[in-house]
Structure formats: structure tokens, C-alpha cells
């Protein structure tokens, strides 16, 4: 529920705490897993924020405000709220390229995420990263990586650094289901097990790697993928955010306590196409399949209905929460729209952290390229 992040002062949308619970007792542990009414409203607020944010991004993409590849998380929000929510502020998250809501869940402000999608200087990556490369190390969010599986060894390395320094943080490394067929996954699992790294590998299993169903290109089941390395495999219903939250809360605690690497197969479903250029349904999955998932397995609707059935959420409260989520996303888009483009003078900034005082780092000979301390010899001139 991004609670910890909010407490850290990170600006996660302006969602106010709910009013007093009209004398009602906190929900029974059985049905609602021991969450207080306030916590449940917080989770719902987060889920609504993620949903509305992606809808706003979709709209902005359609009118050309956002360019390039853009992969929406709609349908998978339970894994932003449920897996990242229980983490500590100083825990680390690294993920692939369907990561807008995960970035927000870890504590990056919706404004900074939207501005990044818009390619603006105020974006969380200064407009240099875009949709697939959101970063903010101050909240422990390490991207945003575009090569399938490329973030997995990096996640192992973040966990390696935690262990090297004797810290008690953990790292969550998300990936899509298709990433487990990359060599990088197998190599990383092996090393993580050998070195007992504090990392949880989470597969957001939406059933399809782009347009290819997992089973069509995979010789074994998802749950079998970590056993060869002695890493425990877990399955969680990612559409049930309450279950997901409690599950990760417990697992994070165990990994923090030294349980070693874990592998989680989180079942979810993508309600939109792979990216903006992919229709919601068509060649590789039927309209009926998508419709039934949207109808029956929407993580936002599941939580909402459960709260209403339990009498923990009124129609008015829901409308208020949703209005806040929409307003936050509207505000993010307005902020992005009003933000400046990156300064052209910064084109060469941040290629290198250290501009060595000798020699040329840039060989394109363009004006503006840093020269490393010595004056450039002007083109065509003789060297004196």
C-alpha cells in the first residue's frame, strides 16, 4: 500500500486517510486478513491511483504526448500494491519495462513518472529514460530495464551489495513470465542460491510473452523453474491484493531474516495489449478470454467488491477515493505538459560520471562535446 513510502515523505498522490469508521470494528481477520479499515482504504486508493494513472498514460499516448514503446500495467496493479507495499523504504526494487505503477508504488511521485513518459526534464530520469527506464534511487527504485531478463543479474547484484555490506534490506526483482527462458535468469538463480542473496524473484505471470503463450515455448511449468537451484517456489494470486500483500509481507520478513533467495510465480493478467501498438485481443488471445478476465479477475474490482460486501466501503467513499486518484493523475499530466523539455545543452551530460582531465571521451567532433580539459583542435587546423 506504499504506506512506508508515504511515511518517508515521498509524494504518492494526494490520497487522504479515510474518515473514522463509524464505530465499526476492524474487519475480521478471516475475511480481510487482519487489515484495518484504514489500511484497506489505503490499498484501494493505491490501486485506483495505479489504474487511473495508466488510463491517463493511454490517453496521452493516443494524442501523441507520449512516444516510443509504452507498456501498460492495467490488470496487474495488485503486484505493485501487494508486492511493493509491504517493503521497507530502504529495500530495493528492480524490474522490467512494464513498470509505471511499480515506480509509483515504491515512492516516485506520479508527476515525476508522467513527466518522464512525456520526455520532460522534470521526469524521474530527466527525460533520458522514458517509459521503460524509470529510476529514483532515493526511494530504492532501480529501474526500469528494457532487455527481457537483463534486470535479473542486476537484481542479484543489488542483493550482493546488501550482503557485502552486511545490511538487512532485501531486493525484489520483478520480471515477466517470458524472462525465465533467458539464460540470464538461470545464471542469476544459480549465483543467488550459491551466495544466499537476499532477493525475491517475482514473475508477473500474465500468461504471454508479448504474443506468445508461455506454455507454447516452455518445456516445464513456471513453478519448476527454480527448483533446480534449490530456490523455493511460491505461487500467489496477484489479482487478490490482500493475499498478495500478506504473502509478501511474510516472505520479505523471512528473506530479511536470512532465508535466502525466493522465487514467486504471481498469477495475473494483462488487460491491454503488450504495448500500445498491440490490440487488446486478436491473434494470440481471444476476445472472450480477455473479457472473462476483465469481468472476473480485475484486481481493483475484486478489492472494491470485497470491501463493499464487508460493509467497509460506501459508494460515497469509493467515489471520493476514485476522484482523488483521477485528480492526482490529471495533476500529473498537467504538470508533465507544463514541464520543460530537457535542455539541448545537456545532450552530453551523464554519459560519463567522470570526465577525465586528459584525452577525449567523445569522438564525434561535434561542438558541445566535452573535451576532457584540453582545448580541442579546431577541425581542419594544424596542430601547433
Amino acid at each position, binding site marked *: 500500500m506504499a504506506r512506508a513510502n508515504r511515511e518517508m515523505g515521498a509524494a504518492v498522490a494526494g490520497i487522504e486517510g479515510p474518515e473514522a469508521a463509524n464505530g465499526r470494528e476492524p474487519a475480521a481477520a478471516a475475511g480481510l486478513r487482519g487489515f484495518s479499515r484504514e489500511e484497506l482504504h489505503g490499498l484501494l486508493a493505491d490501486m485506483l491511483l495505479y489504474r487511473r494513472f495508466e488510463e491517463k498514460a493511454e490517453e496521452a499516448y493516443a494524442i501523441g504526448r507520449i512516444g516510443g514503446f509504452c507498456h501498460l500495467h492495467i490488470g496487474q496493479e495488485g503486484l505493485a500494491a501487494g508486492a511493493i507495499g509491504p517493503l521497507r523504504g530502504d529495500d*530495493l526494487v*528492480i524490474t522490467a519495462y512494464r513498470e509505471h505503477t511499480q515506480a509509483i508504488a515504491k515512492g516516485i511521485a506520479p508527476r515525476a513518472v508522467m513527466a518522464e513518459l512525456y520526455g520532460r526534464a522534470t*521526469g524521474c*530520469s*530527466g*527525460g*533520458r*529514460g522514458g517509459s521503460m527506464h524509470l*529510476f*529514483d*534511487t532515493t526511494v530504492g527504485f*532501480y*529501474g*526500469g530495464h*528494457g*532487455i527481457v531478463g*537483463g534486470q*535479473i*543479474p*542486476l*537484481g*542479484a*547484484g*543489488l*542483493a*550482493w*551489495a546488501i550482503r*557485502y555490506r552486511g545490511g538487512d534490506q532485501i531486493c525484489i526483482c520483478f520480471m515477466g513470465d517470458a524472462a525465465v527462458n533467458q*539464460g*540470464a535468469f*538461470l*545464471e*542469476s538463480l*544459480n*549465483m543467488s542460491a*550459491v551466495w544466499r542473496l537476499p532477493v525475491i524473484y517475482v514473475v508477473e505471470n500474465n500468461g504471454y510473452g508479448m504474443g506468445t503463450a508461455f506454455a507454447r515455448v516452455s518445456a516445464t511449468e513456471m513453478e519448476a523453474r527454480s527448483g533446480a537451484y534449490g530456490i523455493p517456489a511460491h505461487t500467489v494470486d496477484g489479482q487478490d491484493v490482500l493475499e498478495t500483500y500478506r504473502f509478501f509481507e511474510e516472505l520479505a520478513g523471512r528473506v530479511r531474516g536470512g532465508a535466502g533467495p525466493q522465487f514467486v510465480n504471481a498469477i495475473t493478467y494483462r488487460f491491454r495489449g503488450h504495448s500500445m501498438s498491440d490490440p487488446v485481443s486478436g491473434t494470440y488471445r481471444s476476445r472472450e478470454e480477455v473479457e472473462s478476465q476483465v469481468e472476473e479477475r480485475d484486481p481493483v474490482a475484486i478489492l472494491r467488491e470485497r470491501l463493499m460486501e464487508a460493509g467497509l466501503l460506501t459508494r460515497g467513499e469509493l467515489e471520493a477515493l476514485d476522484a482523488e486518484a483521477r485528480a492526482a493523475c490529471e495533476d500529473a499530466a498537467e504538470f508533465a505538459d507544463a514541464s520543460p523539455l530537457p535542455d539541448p545543452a545537456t545532450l552530453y*551530460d*551523464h*554519459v*560519463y*560520471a*567522470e570526465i*577525465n*582531465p*586528459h*584525452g*577525449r*571521451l*567523445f*569522438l564525434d*567532433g561535434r561542438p558541445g562535446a566535452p573535451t*576532457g580539459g*584540453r582545448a580541442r*583542435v579546431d*577541425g*581542419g*587546423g*594544424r*596542430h*601547433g
Partner: protein
Amino acid sequence: MAEITYREALNAAMCQEMDRDDSVFLLGEEVAEYDGAYKVSRGMLARYGDRRVVDSPISELGFAGLCVGAAMAGLRPICEFMTFNFSILALDQVINSAAKMLYMTNGQIPIPIVFRGPTGAALQLSAQHSQACETYYVHAPGVKLATPATPADAKGLLAAAIRDDDPVAVMEGELLYNVRGEVPDEEYVIPLGVADLKRSGDDVSIITHGKMVHVALQAARTLAREEIEADVLDLRSLRPLDADAILRTVAKTNRVVYLEEGWPYAGVGAQIVSLIQDEAFDDLDSPVLRVTQADVPMPYAKNLEQLAKPGVKAVVEACRKALYTAGTPA
């Protein structure tokens, strides 16, 4: 100043830096219990323990990526590749992660990592174990590359690479590890981007890097017998590139041969030729020539291997051609 081997000089650089900074660690295949496939890390496991000197599985993509991840979190890994041939497996992490991270993050995440190991051919190791990998690395903005040719340069450049806040590849040579030379005993760092004139002459410039420096010096000695005096400029690092030193030697001799171990197509020499024609065209009295490996995979048979490698004879002939004294152009 003691005379030690190139191998010992690399070891000394790593120890020098690990002594002063706990965030530096060495990870790679066979680096710990085996003392390094080429014994470069001899004794380091005993000295630093298995927290900081770590044997990896044979998983180049995985352990290179793990090291990059550790660097993302602020550590300073020395990632050893048994040879850079094997690092081709890891290029996704080198190029897509290490090289681009700082830029994609708008300066939030520097990657202070060293990738090191031997590059280029040794003797009769055939196609997959005999290739110069410089261009794969130097091609990508975000990466720096040093190529020490002597023991002193090995210590100074590796130390500089470890202290640098960016990804630096340090490319060594299997045939260099036993080369002996004087190396400062005290703390020693050679800044990246400073070429070294290994020999001075007025007639022709042989510009080169890495192991080929020794071939260039041999060629220069041969040419001296014909009263042709060659400047031998060792670039020492290819990024940053000491363009000033290149332009100086061009202005001095007006004739240039670039010598490298790699293939010609889009090779290091191609970049140097471009630089010279762009910025010192009027200084040239003849076309800049290149001596490279033959444009073929490295063959195994001794005679074919000799033919494929850039050698002293080819360099001498190229220099004569640059001076228009050649009977038999290269």
C-alpha cells in the same frame, strides 16, 4: 623501483586499491582458489578472504550483470573475464546495462566497475580464443578502455581504472603476462587519456596500443637499420583518447601507420584515420595506412596463424610505403 612481471604489476594494482577501499572486490572465474587462470590474482584470496576475492560460476552474462548490479548499489567491482573472448557472452550487460545506466538514470547511477582480462591472440588458440575485443567495448559511449603494454603501465592504468567512476575495460594480453619491467613500488596511478611516446623518431609515426606496442618497437628497430627513425606512440587508453598526442606525432613526421591486433573493418585504426584526416589533413605527406589482423577468423595452423597476425614485417613494409620507399607494399 623493482623489476617485476606484468602479471605481478596487475596484482600490485589490485592490492593497492583493495587496501585503500573496502568497496573494491574481485570476482570472476578461477580468481580465488586457483589464483587466477593466468595467476594474476595469486595470493589475493589469502590476503583478502572470500568476501572480496570470489570464484564465480562459468556464467559470464550472469556474473558480469551481478557485478554491474553491485556497482549500481555503490560497490566497485573488478570483474575478471578469463579472456575477453568469453566476455562476448556478457556484452548485453556491458553495453545495455553498464554503459547506458548513468545516462538513462540522468546521472543517478554511476557504474564504477572494471572489466579486465586478456584480449587478442596468444599462440595457436584458434578462432574462438584469439580475437581482439577492443572495438566491441570502445564503440559504446559510456565505456572507457585502457590497454597497458608494459608492467608499469599495467599497474598505473589498472589503478586508475579501479578509481574511475565509470565502467573501464582493462585489456591485457596473454603474451604480456611474463613481460618484465621496472614498476614503481609506491602508490602509482597513470591517468587515463595520456598516450606515451615509447620511442622517438622523425620519419614516420607508428601509432598503436596494447601488446602491439612491442611489435611496433621491433619494427622501429628494423627500420632504424635503414636509417628510418619511427615515432612509436602507445595510446594506452582508447577512451579517453589522447588526440593531442596523435596530432603531435602526425605534425612531426607527416606519415602514419596504425597498428592493431584486431580486424580492419570499423577497427580502432579506422577511428584514428578518421581523426587524422579530419583534424590534420594538411599535415599528411602520404595516406594513413593500417596494419591489422587479416580479415579472417584466426586459423589454427601455425603458418596460417602467422599470416593472419599483424607482424613486424607488415609494419616495416607499411612504414616504407608511407615513406614511398617500398619495393613491396604491404
